[in-house]
């Protein structure tokens, strides 16, 4: 295989992995834009989504598409309840209280998943497993293509939702100015809970798209840490930024794994994250506004 083809394959695989980071980062960004809270348990919510899909498809024997849809809905409902029951209580507390709260929740989710589904990796058959397309010498897996395609589709749906529907516009309003949104009669609390639901649902989609590539296991939530790099690179307030950041991180990781000595692949995301924060703290798509006194 020639070097150019090799490079292309690395880039496609990297972009596929990066889409997953981008989707998790999208979850962070949606919640951060609306409530100025970062959900450190986002990766673990994704893990729960993966296990939900596994239960519906393998345990209940449902069709892949039905099981996946049910899993996304379940995860979204879980996100809604999470906000209503737990997160809403700490509004107005210092920010690090929320950081610690979501970190603690992550540990609890991991333990609960371990008790419910065990600590072994599980997987299930998808329509995308073990299929490839060939263009001459160039081989592409259906799994990578399905991740990229699914991400693009999801983003289109989210874009239409936020720009064309009443609820989506209400969400944008609540994100921009809570008080003004209250005055306009928008039920801000419910809107925030719905945003948590969308964010959890998006990470559920990420888990399902990821399944043909890697198995579902209790520790897959640690992908969330790499997704931070994607969100920060994208500017943390910007939805397209999160996806672009994710793809950049994914490709950088693949290239580092191929061209640099062993061990560099693991730290690539973290190094990019620190470098971004130091050199370009506002990210690629800056949305931050300096605080006025």
């Amino acid at each position, binding site marked *: 295989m020639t070097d150019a083809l090799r490079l292309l394959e690395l880039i496609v695989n990297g972009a596929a992995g990066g889409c997953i980071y981008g989707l998790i980062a999208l979850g962070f960004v949606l919640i*951060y834009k609306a409530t*100025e809270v*970062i959900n*450190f348990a986002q990766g673990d919510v994704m893990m729960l989504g993966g296990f939900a899909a596994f239960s519906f498809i393998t345990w209940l024997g449902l069709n892949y598409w039905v099981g996946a849809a049910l899993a996304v809905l379940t995860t979204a409902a879980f996100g809604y309840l999470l906000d209503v029951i*737990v997160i809403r*209580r*700490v*509004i*107005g*507390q*210092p*920010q*690090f*209280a929320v*950081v*610690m*709260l979501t*970190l*603690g*929740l*992550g*540990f*609890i989710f*991991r*333990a*609960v998943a*371990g*008790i419910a589904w065990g*600590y072994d990796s599980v997987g299930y058959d998808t329509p995308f497993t073990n299929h490839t397309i060939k263009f001459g010498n160039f081989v592409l897996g259906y799994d990578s293509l399905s991740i990229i395609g699914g991400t693009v589709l999801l983003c289109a749906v989210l874009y239409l939702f936020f720009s064309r529907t009443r609820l989506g516009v209400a969400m944008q309003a609540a994100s921009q100015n809570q008080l003004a949104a209250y005055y306009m009669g928008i039920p801000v609390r419910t809107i925030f809970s719905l945003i948590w639901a969308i964010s959890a649902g998006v990470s559920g989609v990420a888990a399902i798209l990821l399944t043909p590539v890697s198995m579902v296991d*209790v520790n897959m939530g640690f992908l969330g*840490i790499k997704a*931070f*790099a994607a969100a*920060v690179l994208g500017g*943390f307030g910007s939805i397209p930024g999160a996806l672009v950041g994710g793809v950049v991180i994914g490709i950088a990781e693949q290239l580092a794994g191929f061209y640099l000595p*062993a*061990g560099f692949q*693991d*730290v690539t995301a*973290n*190094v990019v*994250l*620190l470098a971004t*924060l*130091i050199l370009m*703290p506002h990210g690629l798509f800056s949305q931050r*506004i300096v*605080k*006025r*006194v």
Partner: protein
Amino acid sequence: MRTLFKTGYRQDLRIWRHPGDILWYGLLGLVLLALPRLLGEFYIGELGAVYIFAIAGVGLMLLTGYTGLVNLGHAAFLGIGAYTNAVLLTAGWPYLLTLPASALLAAIAGVAIGIPTLRMSGLYLAIATLAFGQIVASVLEKWDSVTHGFNGLPVPIPEIFGFPIQGATGVYYTALVLLVAVLWIAANILRTPFGRALVAIRDSEVSARSMGINVALYKTIAFAVAAAMTGLAGALFAQYVNFLAPDSFDVLLSVQFLTIVFVGGIGSLQGVIYGALFVRLLPQGIALVRDDLPGHIGHLPGLEPSLFGLFLVLTILFQPTGIYGGWLRAKAWFQDFPLHRASGFRRQRTYARSERT
């Protein structure tokens, strides 16, 4: 009930609030010195570990509890201190030099992460320190020629003036002396203009800056001091475990340190001790009741981290002032016994905390 009448500003600056403090802390000190003669080897070892965690906790308390900077990579400083101590001892340095060297190297690392994160607010700082912790953990794993990677690094037994510091008792006394020293330093920092500046930065960075406080300088020093204390704790930790493995300095350890600060009671040095006791004794408590629990609950592998998570969540939701706050509340209840009012400790809500406008 003792009522303190303050007649001068100097009184506010004293470390001992009244003579009773000296008496009680003195008695406590005597008991702690005598404990190795009374308790078994196992309990002394565990208490030594509590002191080590408390030293690191004091550092994090200065950083998170008093300056308001969340650090999710605190275990990295402990790791740097531990490996520095082990490597230098192996190279033949005396213990009295390796201890300050561990603290110094950790402090340099603290400045290295402190300076680039100066402009970051709470959440960005949390993410940046998380990444820093992961990078240090990876370096400890992969830098084979110094750390021996996953093969582990044995820690030699050090000597002070010809006396070998070994076994649980040796670690116990070293840790006790250093804990007292660190607490004394922290208590003194908090009553100087520097300490007051840290608290001002925590409460409002903007108003601290407009009062003429050099926020960048003080934040960097806070990082350096916190890292130095934790590096010292790391050196002792190396002595305590005898054999260093890189995977013991992971996110879970950082979260344990934050648990010390939050469960102990944010913004109090006494709270650090309560928190360290809680964090070290919880696993022992689990081990004690493990076999009596119904079914397989006691033998689930995720039990310990999930209980840490659960206690963290419950503390933040229902007792945000931690164990120390609970103790203050109980004391107040007894002091004004028939006249106690529930509203005295009601949680204040603030709605206007936003980083945007």
